[in-house]
Structures are given as structure tokens and as C-alpha cells.
């Protein structure tokens, strides 16, 4: 893995933890014990990246997606249901609050061509790699 998830704010930078992360293959079976909302998967090829994130119940228009160079930031909020008098929670497990999540991508993104789709509570963001950032093949001329 060439890059790692950007350290969350407030968490102490731990180089050993980073090293462990390098060795760990990314598989479904090795999901982290807990993550910042919203949980995100990142899929990459040489030319583009697809970021999918589970944001159920969020108004897609209230989501803020920003791309700067190789970092993607998601901002939004999900508030709890307002309770009227005489109403009470039996269970309260769903996440609520405001979130800001920044992901570092392995390459610089062509920010004009980023597309985002929202369906069934899942947001998918398509991020093409910047032309200037793509690897160039250099042909060797023999004299």
C-alpha cells in the first residue's frame, strides 16, 4: 500500500501503528473495529479511484464534497429525530452528529471531472487521476 488513511484529528501519531498498517492486507475480514462516520471504502486503479461511503438518511444536497490535489473531504451531518412531549427512545443505536472525513488518495485528482452519485443511502464518488500526474513511459532511444 502506497498510502494510508489520514490520521484522524486528535489521535496521537503512532509510527508502529502505521507500520502494522503497511503489512496488513486489506480484506473484508480485517475490517477495523470502529471507524469514523461515515464508513468508507476506496477502490483504486492506475487511472482513477472510486470512493464509496454509507451515509443512510442523509440529504445528498446537504453533503459537501471537496477535492484538493490528492485529498478528498466529506462534510455533513445527521441529526437525531426530534422528540415531542410524551415520546421516548427505546433504543438509540444510529449514529448522529456532524462529520468531517478526509481521505488521502494515491494520486492527484482531476478535480473538474469528479462525479458523485447517491443512491439508497450509498454515496459513490468517481475521481479520475490528473493527466499531469499519470505515469509517463519514456522510450529509450538507442544511438
Amino acid at each position: 500500500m502506497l498510502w494510508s488513511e489520514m490520521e484522524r484529528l486528535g489521535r496521537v501519531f503512532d509510527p508502529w501503528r502505521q507500520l502494522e498498517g503497511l503489512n496488513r492486507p486489506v480484506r473484508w475480514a480485517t475490517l477495523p473495529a470502529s471507524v469514523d462516520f461515515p464508513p468508507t471504502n476506496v477502490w483504486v486503479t492506475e487511472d482513477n479511484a472510486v470512493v464509496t461511503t454509507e451515509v443512510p438518511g442523509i440529504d445528498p444536497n446537504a453533503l459537501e464534497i471537496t477535492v484538493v490535489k490528492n485529498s478528498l473531504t466529506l462534510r455533513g451531518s445527521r441529526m437525531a429525530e426530534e422528540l415531542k412531549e410524551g415520546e421516548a427512545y427505546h433504543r438509540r443505536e444510529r449514529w448522529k452528529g456532524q462529520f468531517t472525513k478526509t481521505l488521502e488518495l494515491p494520486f492527484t485528482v482531476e478535480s473538474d471531472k469528479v462525479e458523485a452519485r447517491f443512491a439508497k443511502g450509498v454515496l459513490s464518488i468517481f475521481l479520475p487521476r490528473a493527466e499531469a500526474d499519470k505515469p509517463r513511459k519514456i522510450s529509450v532511444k538507442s544511438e
Partner: protein
Amino acid sequence: MTDTPRDMQKKAAETLETGERTRACRIYTPQVDIIERKDDIVVIADMPGVDETSTDITLEKNVLTIYGRVDTNELKDHKLSLSEYGIGDYQRVFTLSDEVDRDKIQATVKNGVLWLVMPKATAVKTRKIPIQAEGVGGVMKLS
């Protein structure tokens, strides 16, 4: 009442009493809020990736089962480089008390969130147990 967690995790469902499913897919427990209102009980479940056609709600005797199917459209050409959530179906089972009017349960799915409105049975709504005073102003005697 418990506070909602700061972090979140998509929990895999524990082995169900009904046994394993024939289809080999992961099953997750959707996180729910349950609110009791004056006339009904509302179950709100986070099920990203699910819509109204892929959700099954069954009520057998007093066992309410919520099941949501999710298409696992993994990207074939891409490499998964960050994985914070798994994709799979959702299932959760609740035991209802008699106070729910079974015929009037309503379910809607919007943006990956299931809303289940279960009206209370009329008998329960109006039932108040009168407490009769025995000997007004008297002192309770301990026998």
C-alpha cells in the same frame, strides 16, 4: 438511555436461531432507533444499499423480521485500498408485544433508511388502570 457512539461499526449478525442461509453472503445487523410515541412505535433502521423492493418484513406470531438484500457490486478492475465496511444483507429480529396493531404496520424505505411505524392497538391506547383508594386519609397498616 444510552448515548450514541462517536465511532461506529457495521456489526456482523450473530448466528441466527433459524440456522445458516443457503446463500453464502455476509449478514449485518442494522443499527436501529426505536421511538415510542403516543399512538405508535417507530423503528428506524440504517440499511444502506437497500430500497423498497429489496426489503422484506415478515411478521409471524409475535416475531418481526426485517431483511434487506444488497447487491454486492464489487468493482472488478479496481483494487480495494481502504476498507471500512463490508457489503452484505441485513437482518434483525424483534419480538413484539401484544400492544402493536399488526394489521396496520407501515414500512417505508428512503435513502437507505427503513421506517417502520407500528400503531398501538386501540385497547392498549385507552387502557388505564384506575387505582382505588381504600379508606381515604387512613394510615396503611402493615400486617
